[in-house]
């Protein structure tokens, strides 16, 4: 089989902004900070960059134009993506394809948001709901009239059905939340820096049952960015490169409510394709960075990727597999549940840095050679997978 892009492109710089609660900086400003950091790490100047693919809040249009202006870049290939939390890996896939097509040679990819700042009302009283979805995009029928709002409910519906079909429990979800919190305690940049016990998990208020407070990812300000260029060029750059071995996206766009999509997500097809491109399988993965918008979504994606069998995700996560030192250390930064929710961009950065081996021993996955990163979103149906390898 023809595998034209495996190991041909690399990530050569990563950057993060300040994370969590960052008042006084816009989403674009946060992304600017992350992109400057990624360029510095790569040792590249603005004129070395000729591609820009990014994304941010849905009511800010043409991010790529605004970001390129801020950074002084004339981009040959440039666009903003719209595939929810699956966009960020898709941006890296598009960067590889654009370079391969000769449309660009070095592409800056990033995502930034100011969701926490938006959740604060001007008078200092906390607003009930961050204004994340532009009003023109909000559903007007088949949902709101029944009190069906927000991103928690569709995922909670999936969780409930999974619990019904496979006997999954909130104990399983708690194991995921606690594992990632334990990782966040080792990450000075993480928003959540207090231990989370089983008692804390069950004592917390319910949001949309079966999800309580700690099943839900954080409302964060923050941004992340990476630079993609050819593996050949990467050898001459400042940072230790990480090879892009496989990527794919798959979208169950027929609908989250159709077929068995709520309990068997597009991670399955997206994962199969990415593993095929990489010439690898789940057994080869040393650490996973899974899109954890909600605890349950980690559990089902682990099943769908084949890290365990369908229906056995509960036992898998309760075995301690996800913790540092476990068989599949997952979301080693704390993830979106405990570090910050930046739509999967930070998990790409974490995957790269694990392979660069930059962390102290308490956070570093020992001898990590292969990492799997996932992206999920866009009305819960869109999925993307990225497989990275040590150069």
């Amino acid at each position, binding site marked *: 089989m023809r595998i034209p892009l495996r190991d041909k492109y690399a990530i050569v710089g990563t950057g993060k902004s300040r994370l969590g609660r960052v008042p006084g900086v816009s989403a674009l400003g946060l992304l600017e900070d992350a992109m400057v950091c990624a360029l510095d790490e790569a040792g590249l100047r603005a004129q070395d960059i000729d591609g820009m693919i990014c994304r941010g809040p849905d009511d800010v249009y043409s991010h790529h134009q605004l970001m390129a202006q801020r950074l002084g870049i004339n981009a040959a290939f440039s666009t903003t993506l719209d595939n929810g939390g699956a966009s960020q890996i898709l941006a890296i896939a598009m960067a590889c394809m654009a370079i391969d097509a000769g449309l660009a040679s070095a592409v800056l990819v990033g995502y930034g948001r100011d969701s926490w700042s938006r959740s604060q009302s001007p008078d200092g009283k906390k607003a009930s709901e961050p204004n994340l979805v532009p009003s023109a995009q909000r559903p*007007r029928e088949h949902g709101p009239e029944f*009190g069906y709002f927000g991103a928690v409910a569709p995922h909670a519906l999936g969780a409930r059905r999974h619990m019904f079909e496979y006997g999954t429990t909130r104990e399983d979800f708690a194991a995921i939340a606690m594992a990632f919190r334990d990782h966040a305690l080792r990450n000075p940049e993480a928003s959540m820096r207090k231990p989370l016990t089983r008692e804390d998990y069950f004592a917390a208020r319910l949001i949309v049952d079966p999800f309580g407070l700690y099943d839900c990812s954080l409302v964060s300000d923050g941004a992340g960015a990476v630079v993609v260029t050819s593996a050949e060029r990467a050898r001459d750059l400042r940072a230790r490169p990480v090879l892009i071995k496989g990527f794919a996206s798959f979208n169950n766009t027929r609908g989250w409510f159709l077929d068995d999509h709520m309990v068997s997500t597009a991670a399955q097809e997206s994962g199969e394709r990415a593993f095929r491109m990489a010439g690898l399988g789940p057994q080869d993965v040393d650490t996973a960075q899974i899109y954890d918008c909600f605890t349950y979504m980690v559990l089902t994606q682990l099943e769908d990727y084949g890290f365990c069998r369908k229906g056995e995700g509960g036992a898998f996560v309760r075995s301690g597999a996800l913790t540092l030192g476990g068989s599949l250390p997952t979301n080693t930064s704390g993830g979106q549940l405990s570090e910050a929710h930046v739509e999967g961009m930070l998990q790409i950065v974490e995957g790269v840095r694990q392979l660069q081996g930059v962390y102290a021993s308490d956070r570093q996955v020992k001898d990590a050679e292969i990492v799997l990163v996932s992206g999920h979103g866009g009305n819960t149906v869109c999925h993307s997978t990225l497989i990275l390898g040590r150069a």
Partner: protein
Amino acid sequence: MTGYRKPVPVPSHESKPYWEGLRQHRLLMPRCEACDHRWFPPSRHCPACRADKVAWEEVSGRGKVFSYVVFHRTYHPGFADEGPYCVALIQLAEGPRMLSNVIGLPPDEVRCDMPVKVCFEDVTETATLPKFEPA
């Protein structure tokens, strides 16, 4: 029926017959006259065979709870006094799935695969909502 504070549905061009049917306490679903496929929400072509012969046909209103959640958080002021309420994905006997509320029992007694049947709530002079109760 004045003072209704919850969101009132805004029909689209495609869903108008659905909402008009509900006014007459009839639950209508699109059915393809070419291949007999039924689906929801409505569109101008059959998602199964692409035919544009869409008929609106009354369904039995019987089905089961495919999945359900209980809202504890208030996202809209119209639901502030509601207490925890159940939103469910209903699997209709005829095939399509639709969101609704399960009413007539405490939300923590709802179960997946529980048999339900439709009932109709006239919430304003112009809007009727399809809700479901234990069958």
